[in-house]
């Protein structure tokens, strides 16, 4: 099969995907190295996190990403309507993520936990909240793409917008794939 020179979507988004990955990468490394100096603290408070909620969220994001893959496939097939439906499904899974994560935050905040409580919670809240905001941003992008798809704004010949939104959304998923084990599981 003929290979492309460029990744799917608008190239600009890929520059920002790289920038975002860089920031998250630095955050991950900072977490890991700080943990190395505070192992007891990190191990103790990691246990207070809700791993079941994190599982639901991981599944939600993977599923959502998969739905977006289907949406891209649909538009390549010139089927705007199907593309729109898959995007809606993806958005719904994004919403699931936000609700579950919101529930987790509610739990922590009701215990009076915030960025200043201790180093572990500082990292936990910083990392997940920064990611949380990315989920919201990604959903806004997907929503914009979905609305345009519904009015037939894309076609098999021209659907850069769908691919752009999809690439960003996969990045949000990708980051969570590392975040979940690092913060919730590895000890």
């Amino acid at each position, binding site marked *: 099969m003929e290979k492309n020179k460029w990744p799917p979507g608008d190239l*600009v988004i890929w*520059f920002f995907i790289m*920038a975002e990955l*860089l*920031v998250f990468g*630095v*955050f991950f490394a*900072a977490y890991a190295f700080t943990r190395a100096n505070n192992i007891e603290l990190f191990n103790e408070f990691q246990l207070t996190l809700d791993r079941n909620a994190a599982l639901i969220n991981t599944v939600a994001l993977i599923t959502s990403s998969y739905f977006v893959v289907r949406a891209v496939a649909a538009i390549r097939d010139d089927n705007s309507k199907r593309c729109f439906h898959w995007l809606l499904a993806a958005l719904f899974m994004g919403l699931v993520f936000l609700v579950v994560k919101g529930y987790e935050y509610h739990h922590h905040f009701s215990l009076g936990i915030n*960025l*200043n409580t201790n180093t572990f919670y*500082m*990292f936990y809240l*910083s990392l997940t909240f920064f990611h949380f905001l990315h989920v919201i941003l990604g959903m806004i992008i997907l929503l914009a793409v979905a609305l345009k798809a519904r009015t037939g704004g894309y076609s098999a010949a021209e659907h850069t917008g769908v691919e752009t939104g999809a690439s960003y959304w996969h990045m949000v998923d990708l980051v969570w794939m590392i975040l979940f084990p690092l913060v919730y599981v590895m000890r």
Partner: protein
Amino acid sequence: MKYESQKVAKLYFTAAIGLFVGQILFGLILGAQYVMGDFLFPEIPFNVARMVHTNLLIVWLLFGFMGAAYYLVPEEAETELFAPWLAKLMFWIFLAAGAATILGYLLVPYATLAELTMNDLLPTMGREFLEQPTITKIGIVIVALAFLFNIGMTILKGRKTVVNLVLLMGLTGLAVFFLFSFFNPVNLVMDKYYWWWVVHLWVEGVWELILGAILAFILIKTTGVDREVIEKWLYIIIAMTLITGIVGTGHHYYWIGTPEFWQWWGSIFSAMEPIPFFMMTVYAFNMVNKRRRNHPNKAAVLWALGTAVMAFLGAGVWGFLHTLAPVNYYTHGTQITAAHGHMAFYGAYVMIVLAMISYSMPMMRGREACNSARAQSMEMWSFWLMTISIVFITLFLTGAGILQVYLQRFSDNPMPFMVVQDKIALFYWLREITGFVFLLGLGLYIASFFVGKNEPEATVELAK
């Protein structure tokens, strides 16, 4: 120059250069006081000279930005300025207010000035860079509003280009964030926190939009590269600037009573602040290399490229040097900060204003496109003198800073501040001498406006 009303910029630029000279003279006084502690004491104490030095810098850069806006907005919008009379009126008001404030600093003790201007009604004075009496601050707001109105109406009735839009956003942000200078709680930590919303969000936020817009304008004009390409780059650069710069404010929140999560957030985001500056360097050189024509104003192109390089070095590299929290723990509040400040301001803001002056002044003075070859060559000499001087000033201050950090904070037997100052006096002497070379460069710069007046304009052939 296509529109008569653009000429109002000439007033602004003239004032800017005049105040620039004042700034440098007071810089030399400060440098002398660093090595001869009793110089001009008690007539002009250090704090007064420093206020004059920094306030003149801010005011002349504002004059420069306004002049640049009055010149480029009508040309971009393809229409005359909305109200040239208002621009002239505001010029004189601003100049008078600025001059009165500086004279106030110099003629009466600061405490008396505070009393005379009724600072107690709304105390805003006595904080770094915001030393202006409250009434001057209110005056600045009024001038800024009138200016924004004038520029905004011009843009509204004319063509809406990205350059104009970004410039307008930058100038609006400048006015909006200045409002935080009126917030001065007794709680020092809160005071400092919001003080940075003026200072940081200006110089590492909205001012960079202004810088980006002016640079884009100059590049469009001098290289003939497609506007679409330049505007796209402009968007990406300012996007990166704000994405890194807003949370990057956190690098000021390490040691002033703010919570410790800022050490992480500030370090990570401010470590990325050099990226937009690097992109700006790449972009400026790229555009010049891809130029569709050779502009005969070589000096303006030199200033524009110089801005890109020096902003990256001063703001990007020298900023990065001490932005990470573990490093900043030792360097915070030392000559390292001063070194960074000098090169960053010169590279990013002084040079962009001089680039704009260099590009537009010849046309406002009746030339077709540029000055004579002799005037340009003199101007380029001044470019190199001033730029190399500032590089050396930065290096000397960095040397002083490194020694200061070691002797005062890092060694086994930390020495008192004043003892350390004596030990690093050599660097201060070198800095002061270099300052005179800078003044020489500035003198040449001004002289370049007066030489070769009767000679023909430089042509493209000569420019190659």
